[in-house]
Structure formats: C-alpha cells, structure tokens
C-alpha cells in the first residue's frame, strides 16, 4: 500500500522529468499509430540507407560484383589524403560566412520593421532569389563572374579596371565570392523569417523602451534580439548545416570544386568519388564522416545553449542564495 502510494506520487514526477513514459498505452496511442506510416517511411528512406552506407563503408564496394570486406581501410585512406583535409578546411572556411548570413538579414528585417515605405515590396524583392534554383543562379553568376566577363568588363568600362579579378578562378578569392553568392541566394528567406519573428514581439515593449530613451542599437540589442533569440539560433543552425548539406549545387555549377580543390565541399567530394571515380566504398566512408560532422554540429547547437542556460541559472541561483 505504501509502495503504491509512493509510486503514485513519484510516477507523474518521473514522467514529467523525463517527458516520456514507456507506458504501453501511450506507445500505441492513436497519435502514434497515425505517425507510424511516417515513421516507417523515415526509416525506409533515411535510416536504412544510412545503415546501408555505413555497412558499405567497410567494404571495397563494387555494385554488381564481389565486394570484399576491408575493415577501416576506406577510412584510413581517406584520413591519409591531403585532399580530404583540404576539403575539411574549405568546409571550415565557409563557416566564416555564417555570421554574415545571419546578421545581414536580421538587420534588414529589423530596419524594415516599422515606418519604412514599401516594406512589403522590398521584402518581396529580397525574397526573389530564394525562389530561384541555386543551379540557375549559379549559371548566371558563372557567366557574370567569368574572367573578362560582364562584371570585369563593366569595371574596366567605368575606370575601375584594377578591381577586375578572376573571381571564380583565383584560389584566394573563390570561397569569399561563394560566401557572398550564398548570402545573396538565402538573404530573402532570412529577412522573411526574422520579419515574422519580429512581428510577433509586442510593439508596446519597443514603445516603452523608447520612452525610456532607448536608441536603435539598444532596442535591437536589449529587446529585439533577446525576444527572437530562438529564431536567430534556429536560422544560424540552418545556415551552419547548409554548409554541410546544401552547397553542392552552388559548387557544381559555379566552380566544379576548383580552382584545384579550393572551393570543394564535402558533399561535392562525395559525389565526385562516387559518380566520377566509381570508388563506392571510399565515397560511403566519406558520407559517414560527413554525417558524423553534421550530427556533431547539430549537437553543438543543442548542447551549447543548454549549457549556457544551465550556467546562467546556477549563477542566478547562487546570487539569490547570497542575498
């Protein structure tokens, strides 16, 4: 009897803490049953290929032929290649674009927030690149930025020839140029998302702060940013993950990974290894490494805010106890 009471008391608390119960009824609840097809689909199109590729990364995989088990050989070969580390360095370099990809649309969205004429039209204009395929945008910019192409020719025409550069063929320039192009392509979506988040912040907070004498930057830093922080974090995470997942079309169309390996990303490298060279096992190993990198980055985005919150609450608790 005592045990039952204790269980009844502790049970809900345990459930609340874990947020999940292994109760059989809740496993087979109607909502979960409805989710089952999606779950099966997810397993079939995502987890199974993932397991499949992971298994194949330990083989000298030859589709349609004998594929001998090679253990970690594909991985050791990969890590022993200078080309692989160059690609990893490229990937890290593209991370430098993230602050720009976050701050620029955030600032524009903030500035468009109030009393700007034709704000809707401007948002639409900013959004246009987002509805265009990166492949098409890439093709357009490949022509525009070609050596002696229209941009260089225009610079020459207006007496700024010294600014004409081999934008896509100079190893030092190509990555910054791609960062700017990705900014151009994703800018509108960022503006739209931040605008929506800012619109959800009650206006009277801004008005009250203005009465207290807050200026543009104070409002942005003290009110707007903390109010939409989860959106900023989410957008930042998308941008970081996009470097690992969605750069392929830009690279494929703009530079084909060149000059040399200067602009090659991991996803493009996997494609080359698999499709161009036919090293299926090596490409599988590379895919697994890419997947691990993505998981680590995603975990970082979950863990760091959690740790920060945890540390802040402990500090606040300590202060309260001190008082």
């Amino acid at each position, binding site marked *: 009897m005592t045990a039952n009471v204790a269980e009844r008391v502790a049970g809900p608390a345990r459930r609340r803490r874990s947020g999940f119960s292994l109760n059989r*009824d809740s496993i*087979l*609840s*109607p909502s979960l*049953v409805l989710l*089952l097809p999606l*779950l*099966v689909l997810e*397993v*079939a199109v995502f*987890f*199974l*290929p993932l*397991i*499949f590729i992971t*298994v*194949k990364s330990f083989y000298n995989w*030859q*589709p*349609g*032929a*004998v*594929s001998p088990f090679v253990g970690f050989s594909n991985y050791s*070969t990969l890590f022993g*290649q*200078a*080309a692989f580390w160059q690609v990893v360095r490229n990937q890290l370099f593209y991370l430098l674009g993230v602050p720009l990809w976050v701050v620029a649309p955030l600032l524009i969205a903030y500035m468009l927030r109030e009393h700007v004429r034709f704000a809707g039209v401007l948002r639409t204009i900013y959004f246009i690149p987002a509805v265009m395929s990166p492949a098409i945008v890439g093709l357009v910019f490949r022509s525009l930025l*070609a*050596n*002696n192409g229209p941009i260089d020719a225009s610079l020459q025409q207006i007496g700024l020839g010294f600014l004409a550069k*081999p934008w896509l*063929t100079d*190893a030092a320039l190509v990555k910054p140029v791609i960062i700017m192009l990705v900014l151009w392509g994703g800018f509108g979506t960022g503006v739209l998302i931040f605008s929506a988040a800012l619109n959800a912040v009650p206006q009277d907070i801004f008005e009250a702060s203005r009465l207290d004498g807050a200026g543009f930057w104070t409002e942005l830093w003290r009110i707007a940013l903390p109010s939409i922080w989860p959106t900023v974090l989410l957008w930042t995470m998308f941008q970081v993950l996009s470097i690992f997942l969605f750069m392929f079309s830009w690279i494929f169309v703009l530079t084909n*990974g*060149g*000059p*040399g*390996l200067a602009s090659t990303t991991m996803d493009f490298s996997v494609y*080359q290894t*698999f*499709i*161009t*060279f*036919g*090293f*299926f096992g*090596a490409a599988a190993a590379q895919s697994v490494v890419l997947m691990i990198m993505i998981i680590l980055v995603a975990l970082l985005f979950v863990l760091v805010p959690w740790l920060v919150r945890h540390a802040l609450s402990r500090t606040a608790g300590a202060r309260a106890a001190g008082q």
Partner: protein
Amino acid sequence: MFRNIRRSRAPLALAAISCLALLAAACGGSSAPASKTGLLGPVPKTKVTLTVWSFMPGEYSNGSTAYTDVVSAFEAKYPQVTVNLVNIPYPTYFQKIRDATIARTGPDVITMYGGAQAYSYRNGLDPMQNAMQPSIKANLRFVQDNYSKDGNLYILPTGTYGYALMVNKSLFARAHIDPVTALASWPSFLAACRQFSAHGIQPIASGWKDGYMFETLMYMMSSEMMDSATLAKWVGGKIPVNSPMFVSATNDILAMNKAGCFGNVAASLGRNMYDDSFNQYFAGKTAMMVTGNISTAETSFQHVPSSAIMRLPQVPGSKYTNLIDSGAETGWGVTKWTKLPQAADAFVNFLAGPQAQQIIFNTVGVPPNLKNLTVQGTNAGQKAYLPLLDNPVNHTGFEAFPLTVLAVYERNAAPLISGSMSVSTFTSQAQTAFQQSQ
C-alpha cells in the same frame, strides 16, 4: 478501430520486419555475373528492341543524321532488331551510366572510352576481346591501347583522332618564322615561341581553367616517349605517374610556358581549352592551336584560311621521329545486364565495321580505325589531317590514365602553370591518385 490497432502489435512488428528485410536486401552480398567468353552466335530471329545510349550523335552538328543512318543500315542487315538510340548530352552522360551500373538496369549498348575509363565502369560492361568478329579483329586499330589493366577489352574502339597543331601561316610570316623549320625540333619550337612573343604574338592558344590543355599536352608528349613495350606496361597499370617519363613531360610543358608559348599566363588561367582557346585561334589572335579532330580543323580552315596542320615536334625523350598521339575517337561496349547479348554484340561489331565507319566518315568526317578501309579527304581539313593520321607508329597512352589522375591534373593544371604549385607537389598528388586507383 483505433482500439483494435492499439491492442495489436502487428503494425510495429510488420514495420520492423519490413525494415529488416529491406536492410538485408540492401546489405546482402552480390555475386559477379558470369561474363561471356566468346562470340555468342547468330542474332535470334525474334523481334527485339535494342537500347543504345550514346553522347556521340550530339557531338557533331550532323551527328544525329550520321548515327540514324548507321542504325538504319544495321536494321537493314538485322531486320528483327530495332535500335532505340538515345542521345544523352556529354555533361550528364557518365553520371547516367554510373547510375545504370549501380542499378544494374538500362541500355544494352553504351558509348564508352576504353582503358581506365572502361575499367572504372567494369562492373557494368562485358569483356569484348572474345566477342570481336574475325574480320573486325583482323583490321581494327588501337585495340591494344584500349585494354584495361585487368587484361580485359571492355569496348570496341571506333574512329580516329590525332592531336596536332593548327598553324596560322600568316602570323608565322608576320613574325618571320618558317613553320616547317620551327616545328622540326624541340629547341627550334621553343625558339619560335620566344620569337613570337618578341613580335607581340601569342604563340599557342591556351586556357588552363578546365585542365584539359595540360592533359592534352601530357598525352601528346608521353605518347611520344612510349615505345610499344612501355605502352603495354602503361596500359597494364605497371608504370606509376611519378615515373621519369611523366615528370619529364610535365617539365617539357613548363619549358614551353617559360619560352612564352602560352602567352600571358595570368589571362589564360581563367580560360578553358574548350572552347575559349579555340576561339582565340579562330579569331586569328594566336599562331598555333592544339586540336584533336578533323571537324575542329575544318572550322579552323574556315576562320583562318591560311591554316595548316602540323605535328608537335618530338619532345627530347621521344622514341620516334614523326609520331602523333592518335587513338580511337570513342568506343562501344555491351552491358552486363543486357538480355539481348547476341544483338548487342552484333551492333557493336557493326559499329566497328567498315559500313558504319564509312557512313560516319562521310557524314561527320571522323576517319575510320580500320586497316581495310581507306578514306579520301574531300575538304581542306581532311586533306591536311589524314596524312598525319596515316602513320602506323601512332598510338596513345591517353586511355590508360586513371580518372583519379586526370582529376588531379585538371584541378592542378592552373596552379602548376601559374607557378603556385611545384612539379614535385603536382606529381606527388597525381601519384597518390594513381595509387588510389590501383
């Protein structure tokens, strides 16, 4: 209804079993299909449709007509076979072949380069060395160059290309250079480059961005340095790309660069060989251009009427006096998954035979690679080119360059030429790629 579902574990169990079954199917070992070992006999009389994938019809302005005529001729010979020739643009062609090879389904016959490229697709191609009809076997040229390192011939080579130099005689005259003397030896060739530069004329049309210019020169020079025994070893994958022969060819290209043969290097780094450098020559801005086929030569004659075609001088390490890098224009293979092996073999043999090659020459001007078929040039390009190709010592090592090595050449050509990459780093990266391909 939900109550029933809730009480049943069937959906979960079913999902789990399905997943495991899928996984087992996906990870299950696959065995190599048996390859044919000889001629498969006559084409059965049953009506069938043969699917052929190729990029060749799209390679020439009237290529579609040429290959339609070839197909018609084949269908006339084998009325029970209908050929469905699918033209796939070159930029996406090899990806589609790769997809088909992995999926084990697709065309019965494909266009494919021989040697290393065919080896890369070996899981989808049936060896052809024993499937050649006797008359083809006796007369087909460049067969040895197209073997893969595993000792199999995965394609039958067809057509002929040959790398040579288009020469703008007017610009030679303007720089007071006699083309015959200038291209007689390697030192005189480099001297001519210097003389052109002194006259403000770019000697050779060049573009390094796509890396093909480097590759092309590498083929031309290394082929000169390969005698028959060396070529056989190279085709067999026994010679590494850091061997003296390839290092020497790399240095020869850099020597050309040092002599000013490629003009303003900074400008050429952002140009492709195809078609940027061609356009330089067509515009009359350069004294020479590297080209590999008659149709480009013919276009050159139209743009620069004072053109001539000459050999690249033999490099210092050459084993010959008058060789040009020359080989099969393309090749054709039979897929392992075809259900019509006899018809597929018959079509590939037909493509390699005199009737098809004559049609191709007449329509698009690609010379045949058959000893028993001689063709006469009818235009300036053909008349100038055919004598260079008609040289029994011509061969190529091009087919044996592994794709990984070519990728390294392509991406490192510009850094090498611009001086930002040393020969040793260049060679070492190529060698790493070579080892990866072994």
